[in-house]
């Protein structure tokens, strides 16, 4: 079997198959180096069939890249935020368990930045560069008041969960690679972060749980309400969850059991005030 001539013949039938990947030589390099441990880190996506016509592709490379560039912006924001929290004011986050947790979270966000940059490159595009962020104009004491810092952390993490959730549909049915699974694998990590930050706030007296109850901000207030609006749904796909099938499920539990997406526009409205 001559892989090169097969690829050539495919290109005759499906002319833009290689526009959806890096130039042919790189695409072949990806094929032949996939599976080797050295290559894995720089080639984060598992390549699937490059033959678009074998399946009905329901998204497009440009939509997929939009999602990853958008996600990258959010990860730049989070990584920058935690980096500043740990290093601008070393007294902000108490040493021990709190600092350990914030460091864990920061390391993940930095890893997400790199992962998304590598993914965008593997898909043949150029990652957007890191914006300059300004948190203090929105929350003047975010790096001097630990509770304000934790509140903004919670807000960012819960926003991240809702943002990824809102984009999953755009990553379905991309035949060149499984781009959905990596996004889901980041999305659940952000939810773990959110859960832990909420527990940290609860330990300091906030009326908050690891999950989102109704559209409650968990005691933070109006400044972050946009992040929690729409979380008070108690009906899913036409099925009312409160008291479902005679079970004693309160409306609080019903709203907690499902997290809700945000559209890209809604997320940008939340995040843009932090971009200098």
């Amino acid at each position, binding site marked *: 079997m001559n892989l090169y001539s097969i690829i050539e013949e495919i290109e005759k039938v499906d002319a833009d198959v290689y526009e959806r990947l890096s130039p042919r030589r790189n695409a072949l390099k990806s094929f032949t180096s996939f599976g080797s441990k050295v290559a894995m880190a720089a080639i984060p996506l598992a390549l699937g069939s490059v033959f678009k016509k074998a399946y009905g592709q329901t998204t497009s490379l440009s939509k997929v890249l939009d999602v990853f560039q958008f996600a990258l912006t959010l990860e730049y924001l989070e990584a920058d935020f935690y980096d500043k929290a740990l290093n601008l004011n070393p007294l902000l986050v108490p040493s021990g368990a709190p600092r350990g947790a914030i460091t864990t979270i920061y390391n*993940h966000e930095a*890893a997400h930045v790199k992962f998304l940059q590598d993914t965008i490159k593997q898909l043949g595009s150029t990652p957007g560069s890191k914006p300059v962020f300004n948190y203090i104009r929105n929350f003047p004491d975010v790096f001097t008041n630990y509770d304000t810092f934790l509140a903004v952390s919670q807000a960012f993490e819960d926003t991240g969960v809702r943002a990824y*959730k809102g984009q999953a549909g755009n990553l379905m049915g991309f035949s060149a690679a499984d781009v959905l699974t990596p996004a889901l694998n*980041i999305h*659940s990590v952000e939810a*773990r972060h959110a859960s832990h930050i909420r*527990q940290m706030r609860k330990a300091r007296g906030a009326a908050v749980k690891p999950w989102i109850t109704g559209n409650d901000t968990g005691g933070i207030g109006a400044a972050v309400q946009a992040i929690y609006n729409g979380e008070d749904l108690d009906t899913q796909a036409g099925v009312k969850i409160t008291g*479902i099938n005679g079970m004693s*499920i309160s409306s609080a539990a019903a709203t907690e059991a499902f997290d809700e997406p945000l559209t890209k526009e809604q997320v940008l409205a939340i995040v843009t005030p932090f971009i200098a």
Partner: protein
Amino acid sequence: MEKLKNAEELVLAENRDRLLQAKVQRRSFLKYAGAGLAGIAVVAVGCDKGDNPDVISLGEDDTRILNYAYALEQLEAAFYIKVIDSTSNGLSADEVALFTSIRDHEIAHREFFKNALGKMAIKSLDVDFSSINFSSRDSIIDTAKAFEDLGVSAYNGAGRLIKNPDYLLLAGKIVSVEARHAALIRDLKSNGTFADSTIINAQGLDTSMSPEQVLAIAQKYLKTEIRF
């Protein structure tokens, strides 16, 4: 054209390998090879005909994935119900409150899938919790941790198998709640381990497992055998 035929064979060979690994039954294989559409007659969901009545199949396409999720939510709900019902579970009052909420979330998930599946829903599963000590906080926490991490991994791994974007969104709404649960349980076992290197890799990614991998683990807690 000779060379084009080779390319088609390559695609089919790729598909065949993937399908054989997934142990797809012949009817589904024909579908993938283009011989049928998603609307073909769905296999009766339920008893595997001719076999042990306590072996069930989950159906086809998205029905299969939803029943898979329904099975896992049944397992989780049954576990947390038993935890809360066990008076000597060794949990603190605060922990009981948190576990009660988790129980209610899992019941909500379970009943949601039951209603969404309607006639296509599998039956109520017979669970096997003989390996769990419901009088031991450690046993409860370790089991809860395993179930929640498994649930996250299951939903993360099932996403790519879903065809209907509405179902993908619903799975997405649930998985982040399971991840919140998982983080909490891990912190109850050892504060700070909510997303440690035993579950998050160097790229900052959570785990995702295939249904076959998940069911192999879940089967330990089920008397009913599930065939994906």
